[in-house]
């Protein structure tokens, strides 16, 4: 069984704020799910002779997709000042 500390560590890695009750539920659920999916350890490794599903696809480095106007994208900002997205200051002056 995965520990509560592990759950808290995962939540921190995943940038998720959880409540105490949810931490306990997740401890149980994730342990059960991991026990089930752990079956894959029984599988022998692939022989490597098959054509893999992934392949490289190259394209010219040209602008083609238009995924919305500038104004549409600006409108999605949670906090907007003029044409700027207001974000938290993360660089601080040395004291």
């Amino acid at each position, binding site marked *: 069984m995965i520990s509560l500390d592990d759950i808290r560590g995962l939540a921190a890695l995943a940038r998720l*704020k959880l409540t105490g009750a949810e931490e306990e539920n997740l401890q149980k659920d*994730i342990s059960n799910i991991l026990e089930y*999916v752990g079956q894959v350890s029984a599988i022998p490794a692939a022989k490597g002779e098959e054509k*893999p599903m992934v392949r490289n696809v190259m*394209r010219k480095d040209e602008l083609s997709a238009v995924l919305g106007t500038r104004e*549409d994208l600006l409108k999605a900002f*949670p906090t907007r000042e003029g044409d700027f997205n207001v974000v*938290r200051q*993360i660089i601080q002056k040395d004291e």
Partner: protein
Amino acid sequence: MSNLADLTIAEASKKLAAGEITAVDLARACLENIEKHNKELNVYLEVFDDVVVQAEAADKRRAAGEKHPLLGIPLAIKDNILIEGRIASAASKMLEHYVATYDATIITKLKEAGAVFVGRTNMDEFAMGGSNENSAYGPVHNPHDISRISGGSSGGSAAAVAAHVALGALGTDTGGSVREPASFCGVVGLKPTYGAVSRSGLIAMGSSLDQAGPLAKTVEDAELIFNAIQGKDAYDSTSVDKGTYPAPARTKKIGVPRALLNGVDADVLERFESSLTALEHKGYKLVDIELPSAPLALACYYIIMPAEASTNLARYDGVRYGLSRKGNDLAEDYAASRGEGFGPEVRRRIMLGTYVLSAGYYDAYFGKATAARETLRREVTEALKGVEAIATPTAPVPAPKIGEKADPLSMYLLDIFTVTANLTGNPAISVPMGTVTREGSELPVGLQLTAAHGDEQALFTIGKELQ
């Protein structure tokens, strides 16, 4: 005909072409049914306010000489498919007010065809679930018994077709999310070959698994929608064209992996056997096949999918768009936005994905699952060299009651037959195979056919024999 919305797409298309009805008539018929049923079924998260205007435009295009089987046909669109200028929320609080800034490629294609978009359909949040109970906006109710789930995650799209509040629908399928609700709602659902349909403009869950596909009343209708949306797309580098895969031989053989059918309900298995017998009468030969790794498919899927989903969902940080909450510092801003914006199942899968990708566990889980996936793909490809399609039930049971599958693992087991096609990239379809009775309700169940990569045609040909 009590209501024009009862028509199939093929029937409506003929009537439109003959000038017997207009697109506006069809749109109004759907709106009338929505008025009657949507509150009870919770199919649509939003019915667009310009449905009749879109239909008028389609009628004008027809009057100007345009022809397309989908011109003027009202379709329901799953809420994770972008339509420019409209909300696409993936049934999540995270994207409740998010307005799409461009059209998904499949939407562009449907607009070119002249389809009418009725509204955006309810779904499991971020397409994570098999019951539609994970929607932030409440579950969809099954039109055959409203105390039961519609299936999911494309539950709204499946129920929309079954309840005649659209003539057809688009869904997305990452582990069965088109086929399983199609089975539970008694409609046809197709998961195309991976890459057959562009993923550009879909809200991503598991990028190596996701495919958009049609839900429809008949196989013929599903084929009409598939033909309109398929094709290689410069905006999706994983998309393929018709020449990518070799044309398979027409053997008139259907493979049945009987060793996998142990956990299927007895009456569902009876429907399955009688459908197989019907196919034999149509000249198909049944062949026993073995897929030795298939029992591990679900375990493999529940490693790969959360790994990809947790990665894809890292983009929702409350900074550029979507729900934004503030804490004491940037890390707290992220955690607060994501903690509040995502529902319980989404949080669970992000946590699971984070676990299987963490250093120390990666080889044991993700590495093994990737190897298992390749083995499974080889087994399915080998099996399909001797047969045109593999048949199984779509799901082991008919639609459970709302709230019945409270434990996440028991919910995941509904996907036992559907995840394989996503892992291997093969096309698969669910076609109704009759009904079974539960507590006095007649509940539909579906038969799943899986074909070789690029061979949707086999699914359509055999699927039509089952109707």
